């Protein structure tokens, strides 16, 4: 029982990171029907930016994160702007376009930071909390708190602001949204920007948990995608639940299957797509394209 609970706790903080990655995927998907294949690479960029400002420039961790989020947000804007001519026209080509951006970002990361990774020390130096014999790292709690705050802010933005409501309208019907005077391109751009910002947030937070390397984003990207699929693509609560579920699954498979844990994740999520492509909370039809 003790081991069981400890494994769950181990999975939850990574799960929160997966949830953030999944949120980024889902936000872009629900707004413009596009799966951003460069999302994982943006996570890598965010992780490197945050760790660089934190370690090399000796900035406070929070400030380093803010800078990383701002820079990746700008990258998101660039990606959206370049691919805008294809929006609502050819989804397969857009998908390949984001892969193209992923290729470029991947090479840029290696060109700037090198192919070897770096370890990031935890910004929170307190002792782990002992709760009924379970050890909980303080940083895990910080990750959970930030992820929760980001989710709440996102939901508030989408439901309470005019801009957020406009994005919801675009998500439902881009033609009708155009007809009532919403600038669809700008709405998509904001979705992309927030999505990229969330990716950087995830990357920055995961730095002290994992090893920051060029391969980080690929792994997180696919896990985040699996989380989004599991919860139902485009659904915000789905992304959260899916992220936590994949995190816990991860932590169990790592215990039981060692090197094959990734393999198990991939197979589980392939089966999910086959059995229920709309996920747990998903409603949209799959063949949007």
């Amino acid at each position, binding site marked *: 029982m003790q081991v069981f609970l400890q494994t769950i706790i181990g999975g939850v903080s990574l799960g929160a990171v997966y949830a953030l990655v999944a949120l980024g995927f889902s936000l872009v998907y629900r707004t413009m029907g596009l799966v951003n294949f460069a999302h994982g690479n943006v996570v890598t960029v965010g992780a490197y930016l945050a760790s660089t400002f934190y370690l090399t420039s000796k900035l406070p961790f929070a400030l380093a994160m803010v800078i990383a989020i701002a820079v990746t947000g700008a990258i998101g804007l660039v990606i959206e702007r370049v691919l805008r001519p294809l929006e609502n026209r050819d989804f397969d080509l857009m998908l390949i376009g984001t892969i193209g951006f992923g290729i*470029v970002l991947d090479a840029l990361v290696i060109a700037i930071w090198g192919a070897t990774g770096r370890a990031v020390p935890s910004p929170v130096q307190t002792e782990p909390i002992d709760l009924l014999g379970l050890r909980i790292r303080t940083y895990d709690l910080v990750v959970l708190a930030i992820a929760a705050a980001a989710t709440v802010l996102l939901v508030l933005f989408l439901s309470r602001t005019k801009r957020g409501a406009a994005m919801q309208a675009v998500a439902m019907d881009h033609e009708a949204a155009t007809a009532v005077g919403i600038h669809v391109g700008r709405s998509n751009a904001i979705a992309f920007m927030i999505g990229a910002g969330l990716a950087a947030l995830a990357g920055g937070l995961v730095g002290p948990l994992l090893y920051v390397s060029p391969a980080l984003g*690929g792994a997180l990207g696919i896990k985040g995608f*699996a989380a989004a699929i599991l919860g139902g693509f485009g659904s915000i609560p789905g992304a959260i639940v899916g992220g936590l579920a994949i995190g816990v699954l991860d932590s169990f498979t790592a215990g039981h299957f060692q090197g094959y844990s990734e393999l198990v994740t991939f197979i589980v999520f392939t089966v999910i797509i086959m059995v229920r*492509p709309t996920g747990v909370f998903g409603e949209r039809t799959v063949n949007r*394209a």
Partner: protein
Amino acid sequence: MRTRLLLAAGAVAAWLLPYGLDSYAIHVVDVILIFAILAIGLGLAMGIAGQVNLAQVAVFGVGAYVTAILTTRAGLGFWVAAVLAVLATVVIGLVIGVPALRVQSHYLGIVTLGLALAFTSWVTNAQASGGAEGISGIPVPELPGVDLSSEYLYYYLELIVFAILLAFGLFVVRTSLGRRMRAMRDDALAAGSLGAEVPVLRMAAFLLASVYGGLGGVLYAGLIRYVAPESFNIANMFLLLGMVIIGGRQSLVGCVVGAVGLALVREALVDHPQIAQIAYGSVVVLVVVFAPTGLAGLPVRVRSAVARRRGRQGAAARLKPFQPYDPEPSRRDGETILQVDRVTKQFRGLKALDDVSLTVAAGEIRGVVGPNGSGKTTLFNVISGLYKPTRGRVRFRDADRTGDAPYRLARAGLSRTFQNLRLFGDLTVEENILVARDRSRTWESWRYLLRPISVLRRDRELHRHARDVLDRYGLAEFAALAPKSLPYGIQRRVEIARAVAAGPALLLLDEPAAGLNGEEVRQLAEIVRSIRDSGITVIIIEHNMGLVMTLCERVTVLAGGRIIADGTPAEVARTPAVIEAYLGDSMTAGDLPPISEVTR
């Protein structure tokens, strides 16, 4: 003639190429040829059949690894191992293709990517595959009298395999199987409604791609004689994708050009891999946005740009009059061909069809009318198998066809057009007709391997039939044009010709007169009557009341998902419910066409 000369020159150049290369260069060329084979396979899946496949490099890896394991661990000879390896990739290809039956586009991309990652994750960890170190010591393939350990001689082996595979790929693309795949790529729904077995075609696409991948893997194992996980990672998959996109995914020759070009650029920048990667990534983005057809599409674009600059030359294609069919009274006239029995179709809270029953006799022209949103198109979609009814049955030609897949219904003799036109955009007008005319089964595609001549013969026959159809509908001069470039009225006519070319017993026309001018509507009436006289039953949804009243023998009126009237046009026009629901209560029956006009 010119293409033959080019081909001969290319063959001679390829044959003489090794004489001018040093030992490193020939190695590079050998690797490039393998990538070209992979690119053809990926082009077939992605460009021709429209199936996003990010597992091609993993399949390539399966081919190479199986060869390596069977030769080094099981001690089999190279060629035996090679055959088994290709068989293994066929199986893997089918497994990768299974998700395509459920999901498409982005989802398919991510699933295939996930499977590819699963493969690399497995080979890096498994004992059998030698872990991260991989497997070395693969024996040299033996060929009597030829020493294949020489990379120069290996080049010729690869060249022959490559030439055969390219020729086979082109053969597939230009005949029945490839045409259907392209139709499915452009519009899977319409292709299904014309009898293309979409699930089988998707599997066939993955199968073809993996055979190419597997053969590439075998050649790779024989060339490098060492396999390791990093040769088959995602970076190489994206490189291959870049080759196919930059070259032009819809053209196999383009894929080869892209593979050769990108591989050469990468070789030139071998000391600066990041720069090379940034360069080709950017080019992929630019190609996707500005030249989606890639390098292969450039000649056409340049030519049309030049033609536009100079102003159009040559005579524009003209629409010829329709030549009526010879009347052929069917023996089955008057028998029930279609019976819709108490069908209800519910979309969440909305009841689009509510307890609809309808019987259509063979040889009839039935009109279905009703206000917008009354469920007419939903009824067509239920009849043609696109929707499964929530309740009720559909019987077609004495068999219960409720919930059958559209392609099964199409093969049983049902054909339809669509309200918003669903022509295959990247196919020519003639190919649109050919896809419909082609009634062969996709699983018969084994003929491509064993009886290629019979495939060619059948294709020639199909072309002749398609010519006849085009002539009859006066479309002969448009045969080689893209449907999107034609005026709307002509596109409508192409779609009807396509639906009839499938040789149906029952034809469903969904608002065929929408967007047509008066003269075109008159021609349409003539065409529909002639189609009926040739023995085809017609059901027509139409808003043009004049057309419905003159053309149809019986009219069914839908409103709010229910049938509110059914009878001859004259009877229906007198029904008060119809006048109220459909024509609005301000109109009176006096506004309707006089009876004499109704019974032509």
